[in-house]
């Protein structure tokens, strides 16, 4: 790209204004903020008897369970757990895995892309060939293999901490750790998904760095004796922030989808933790034409589809506003 044309296409000072005029993206943002708040706050406020398993299994929505005298707004599942509670704690896990997994991929991808683009030449060539190789790896399959490989090691590692705590007679800590162990799969999923999803981010960042590094302010910074690392951190990173934010927003739904695929196949999140994928798996298992337990399938499906739609709307809005390479 010629240097004179570059500033206009990169700076685009009106990006936030473009975003503000995009009503669909703003509604999506509001929905996501609201959902996150509800998912964080409401499960804490729910009465304790709704959070445990009970004998009142398959209570339809809006009905009073005879066994426990509790009203279940969205019904209960096979173990008599309240669906609203399951759904919201599932939202916590799904959104959390999506966000943290995407953040990991952002970290790796940005660093990789910046180094590759700024170094240029042979290093750039090798690093980009590596990405091409990694892109021809079947992604979901690779995540599965990684999860299978990491899972037992992580469980063993957490167990090591528990035994160490027990040896020192810290009963509380040991109990906390064994509670955490039930959720170890969440950790494994986050790491595996983050390790696999960074390729697009790396390529986008590299492309931007290739343009930026030819610009005068970078030459000036270099002439003033800044180290390559300083140039990357102080001058390139701020200019990359909006595009990174955009692709972060688009990576989150991809990570959530992958997580739900794996959980649906029974390779992902395990009880007692729940995610939208594992809830849908449970829902699909009890579906039969005679006696439909539709609430187990419909509520997670609706919430998941709406959230992914909102994330994609927001991501598209951000891309229209900030990515000089997309569209008009």
């Amino acid at each position, binding site marked *: 790209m010629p240097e004179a044309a570059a500033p206009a296409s990169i700076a685009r000072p009106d990006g936030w204004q473009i975003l503000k005029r995009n009503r669909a993206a703003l509604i999506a943002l509001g929905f996501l903020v609201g959902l996150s708040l509800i998912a964080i706050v409401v499960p804490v406020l729910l009465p304790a008897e709704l959070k445990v398993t009970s004998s009142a299994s398959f209570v339809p929505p809006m009905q009073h369970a005879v066994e426990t005298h509790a009203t279940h707004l969205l019904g209960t599942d096979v173990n008599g757990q309240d669906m609203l509670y399951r759904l919201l704690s599932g939202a916590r896990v799904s959104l959390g895995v999506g966000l943290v997994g995407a953040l990991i991929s952002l970290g790796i991808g940005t660093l990789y892309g910046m180094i590759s683009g700024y170094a240029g030449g042979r290093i750039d060539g090798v690093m980009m060939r590596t990405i091409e190789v990694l892109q021809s790896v079947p992604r979901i399959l690779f995540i599965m293999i990684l999860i299978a490989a990491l899972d037992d090691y992580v469980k063993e590692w957490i167990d090591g901490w528990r035994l160490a705590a027990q040896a020192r007679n810290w009963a509380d800590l040991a109990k906390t750790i064994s509670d955490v162990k039930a959720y170890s799969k969440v950790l494994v999923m986050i790491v595996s998904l983050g390790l696999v999803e960074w390729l697009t981010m790396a390529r986008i960042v590299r492309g931007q760095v290739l343009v930026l590094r030819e610009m005068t302010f970078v030459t000036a910074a270099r002439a003033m004796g800044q180290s390559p690392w300083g140039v990357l951190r102080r001058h390139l990173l701020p200019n990359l922030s909006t595009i990174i934010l955009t692709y972060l927003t688009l990576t989150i739904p991809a990570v959530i989808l992958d997580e739900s*695929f794996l959980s*649906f196949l029974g390779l992902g999140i395990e009880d007692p933790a729940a995610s939208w994928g594992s809830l849908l798996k449970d829902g699909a298992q009890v579906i039969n034409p005679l006696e439909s337990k539709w609430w187990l399938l419909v509520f997670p499906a609706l919430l*998941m589809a709406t959230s992914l739609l909102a994330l994609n709307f927001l991501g598209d809005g951000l891309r229209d506003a900030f990515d000089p390479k997309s569209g008009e």
Partner: protein
Amino acid sequence: MLPFLLRRALSSVIVIFCVISITFVLARITKGGPFDKEKEPPPHIKEALLTRYKLNGTVWDQYTAYVGSLVRFDLGLSTRYRDWRVAELLQQKMPNSFALGSLAFVIASCAGVVLGSLAAMKKDTWIDRTAMFGALLSISIPSFISGPFLIAIFALWLGWLPVGGWGTVSQMILPALCLAAPYIAYVARLMRNSLLDVLKSDFLRTARAKGLTETQAVVRHAVKVAILPVVTFLGPLAAHLLTGSMIVESVFNISGAGMIFVNSIQNRDVFLLGGAVIVYCVLLVLFNLFVDVLYTLLDKRIKLYA
């Protein structure tokens, strides 16, 4: 052309080799071997089994043995389905996935190109907005949600198509549609953006000036150029669809390649997993190569560099 093909063939072999190495090593350092059962077999039997399948010794020994057999075009034996060769298992399951995948591929590419072109030609009208909203919707809905809903609508409610089963074309339509849905959306969005760019170009103004109607201009001239970015996407898409989607196969209860992936990981069936990965990578590499060659045929300006 020939040096290009040779170079690509060489780099493809290297790619496949890297992928298979990573897969094998990861699968072997995973805890739990292929012969670990809840009831632990006697050590000498386990040892004999491991020796028979060349899975004893260090990971490096196992790896070299495996690569050695691969070089002789031998994919090895399945450790789970005893006495089945990996090649036989793949031969048995792949055709189902291929049939499903090809149908989904045709649906995705045709519907995507048509919808995308329509949206671009009717930019900013209700047609464009509906198509693009539909695209975003079908990207956002995973197949294990859309699958049951498609069954409920078309099979149970309208009664147009059978609920399940496998073999006839009418039984394949629902799973193929379910598999194709998000990809229709990707293709449509690519096609729309690229056609919008092409519609602004000079040669199209000439075509209009010659007196062609807008439809004629688009069909005869614009689509040929605008389809190029779509073609790049079709390569990986084809490999992806042909090797089967695990989710769609499990929702519609089809026994195909997708289930091989899932089961071989859970059963620690290293050789079957390796075989499936190889098939996937070879297809991916072949389709990408095919796309590059197709590119030069569609756009005479592009030359393949050696």
